[in-house]
């Protein structure tokens, strides 16, 4: 049995090295060599993968640090030394890679990835997660909406029922929320109409998918919009809350990894990355973490599924002026005081 040390709890604490903040740090003792990973994914979710990795790579101690996607971004921009950076914020990751914070890596595993799941031999996706709606069946009389248009109709028909019972990410605080909101905005005008309608219902804003799911399950919320499906699918079974992939379009988030240019053991980072992308790693990702593996066939089977493209378009909403303008508009639409 491996000796696992949880060095810090779920409290926010400032790291000694820089101005970025981490949430948790765990050290999985293995041996002399130390691989340090900075990730947005919770330790317990990743633990089975780490155990499997250490089983095939004995002698490697793994330091696993969890931070929010903004803090992962900030840490790498401050050139903090990590060997692998894993984040669900594709836009932040692409910005890091575009601005030269990642080193290239090529292997048979990366070559096997579909084109849409990597960028420039620097940024690699290892899971694809639909961005879904969680609805309480009871709140919708057993007929939850299947598209955004249907949702708008239902909300307009009976606004009183939903006042204060719609939840979504706060894009000003949450990186994932910002990404989903901007992708929605660029995908269709329906999302702006939806934002207006939701704005009239005094929505509740969240920073994590987990809390939204909990509140739908507890009945506090009738509907949570833009929730990461991977979190939901694990927790919803048989209850009142159901997961809906909107049929007009459902974004698919790619969880990505890159090797920072400051990596002290870039080789170990690459080894872990290749493990994540290998058939064994992908199987573990899907079975043990609940995050769907990279699967082109699954995308082809669901015509409504739109993977968010890993391309420089993601940089547009990273622009501070663009961000400010977008948030202003979003606030004007959703936060109607």
């Amino acid at each position, binding site marked *: 049995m491996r000796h696992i040390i949880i060095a810090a709890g779920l409290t926010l604490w400032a790291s000694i090295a820089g101005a970025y903040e981490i949430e948790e740090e765990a050290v999985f003792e293995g041996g002399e060599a130390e691989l340090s990973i900075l990730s947005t994914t919770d330790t317990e979710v990743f633990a089975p993968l780490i155990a499997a990795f250490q089983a095939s790579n004995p002698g490697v101690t793994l330091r696993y640090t969890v931070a929010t996607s903004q803090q992962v971004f900030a840490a790498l921009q401050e050139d903090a030394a990590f060997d692998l950076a894993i984040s669900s914020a594709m836009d932040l990751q692409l910005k890091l*890679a*575009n*601005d*030269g914070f990642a080193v290239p890596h090529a292997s048979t595993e990366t070559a096997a990835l579909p*084109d849409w799941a990597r*960028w*420039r031999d620097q940024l690699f996706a290892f899971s694809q997660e639909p961005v879904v709606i969680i609805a309480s069946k009871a709140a919708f009389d057993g007929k939850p909406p299947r598209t955004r248009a249907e949702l708008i109709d239902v909300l307009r028909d009976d606004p009183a029922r939903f006042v204060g019972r719609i939840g979504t990410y706060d894009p000003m605080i949450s990186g994932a929320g910002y990404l989903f909101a901007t992708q929605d905005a*660029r995908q269709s005008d329906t999302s702006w109409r939806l934002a207006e309608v939701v704005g009239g219902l005094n929505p509740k804003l969240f920073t994590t998918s987990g809390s939204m799911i909990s509140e739908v399950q507890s009945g506090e919320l009738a509907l949570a919009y833009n929730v990461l499906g991977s979190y939901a699918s694990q927790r919803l079974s048989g209850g009142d809350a159901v997961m809906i992939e909107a049929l007009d379009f459902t974004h698919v988030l790619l969880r990505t990894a890159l090797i920072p240019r400051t990596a002290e053991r870039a080789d170990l980072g690459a080894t872990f990355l290749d493990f994540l992308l290998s058939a064994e790693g992908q199987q573990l990702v899907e079975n043990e973490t609940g995050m769907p593996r990279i699967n082109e066939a699954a995308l082809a089977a669901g015509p409504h599924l739109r993977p968010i*493209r*890993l*391309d*420089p*378009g*993601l*940089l*547009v909403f990273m*622009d*501070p*002026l*663009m961000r400010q*303008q977008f948030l202003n508009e979003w606030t004007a639409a959703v936060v109607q005081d």
Partner: protein
Amino acid sequence: MMTVFSPAGSIRRRLVVILLVVAAVLAGLLFVSVRTVANTAVETTQDAILGAATVAIAEELRGGEDGLTIDIPYAAFSMLGATGQDRVFYRILVGAETVTGYADLPLPDAPLSGLKPTFFSQQYDGDVVRTGAVSRSVLVDGRSQIVTVLVAQTRTAQDAISRQMANQAATLGLGFFAFAAILSIFTARSVLTPLNRLAEAMGRRGPQDLRPVDRAVPTELAPLMQALNGFIARLRGALTRTETFITEAAHHVRTPLATVRVQAEIAMRQTDDDALRATLRNIIRAVDDSARSAGQLLDHATVVYRADQRADELVALGPLVLDVVDSFSPTADMRDIALRVDAPDEVIALQFDRLLIESALRNLIDNAVKYSYADSIVDVQLSTDGTFAKLQVLDRGRGIGDGNSVQLVARFKRGENVGDVVGSGLGLTIVRDVTRAIGGSFDIKERQGGGTCAILLLPLA
């Protein structure tokens, strides 16, 4: 006796090398021009996209009461680089102040003008980037301000396409070269065919064949043909003159020799002085030998001359052999040498010049008798196998010694064991020349049990 040529290079090789060099140069030019055109096309296309992105951003710039608003169209960046694999940088300035983007992205050297974007390449953040730049005049806070938009992208996609194009151009060039190489080999072969045919025809000629070359040759070979025929004509003239001279000389020598011989015989009969008789006998012998040599010279000249201009007729070999053998009977009788002829009853006929065959037979039998010891037998055997007539002359003489048959038949060459016998060294040469002219073969070798065996194979008519 052929002179061995050491050829100074090969026309075909030279031709092939020149054609290959030309093909290589053309293939190289093809490669370079295809690459240049392809690169220009790729760069133009990429610039067009970059320009569209730059302009799209510039179009969305709005002035207003509360400063500049920008709206970067999502597609503007998304479409950059056909594969989306290029890094993208941008910078938006109002006047000289950067309002957003990468503040250290270099500006163009020359001031921007007009509505069209300007493009330039430079180094940025470790990569070569292609930058599109455009400027607009925008009303900000009621004042007209120059707003500049720069969009830069790395050249990964462009380089990838260029590499692919280069590979295709290289394949094209190599293919062209291979094709040209094969063509050049065929060309060289085709061009040299008339020359090869001429050389082959000349090579097939017998050694005595001095007829003018009468072949249809390409214009370029006409001077060579004229020179060759002129040379052949001069050679024939020279040979004819030589043979005529030898004939004349032999003739002029033989006549006085005959007179000397007759006078010596008369003198011998008229004297009783033994010493004088012995002297006279020596004189007669010497005269005989001289006459024989002169005869052989004459024969040889005849053979050389007639081999060229033969009077072919059907010759029955059996009777001819008998006639020649008969003519040697007196000489053989003097030394008690028996001449035995063994010829079949059937008619063995050759289509050839009778005089030439006779002269060859005479020389063979003359040799056999001359080199036989007294009181021995010379066998002349005639036979046929249906294709060739085989004539063997066998003696029990001194043999051919150590000299080989090739040396013996050379003109004026004699065996090393015949110093005591007078001879000119022309006999076997005559035999060989005749055999060659008729297309047969001649061999002379040691006979088993001592002596010489001469074998003549002559094709039947």
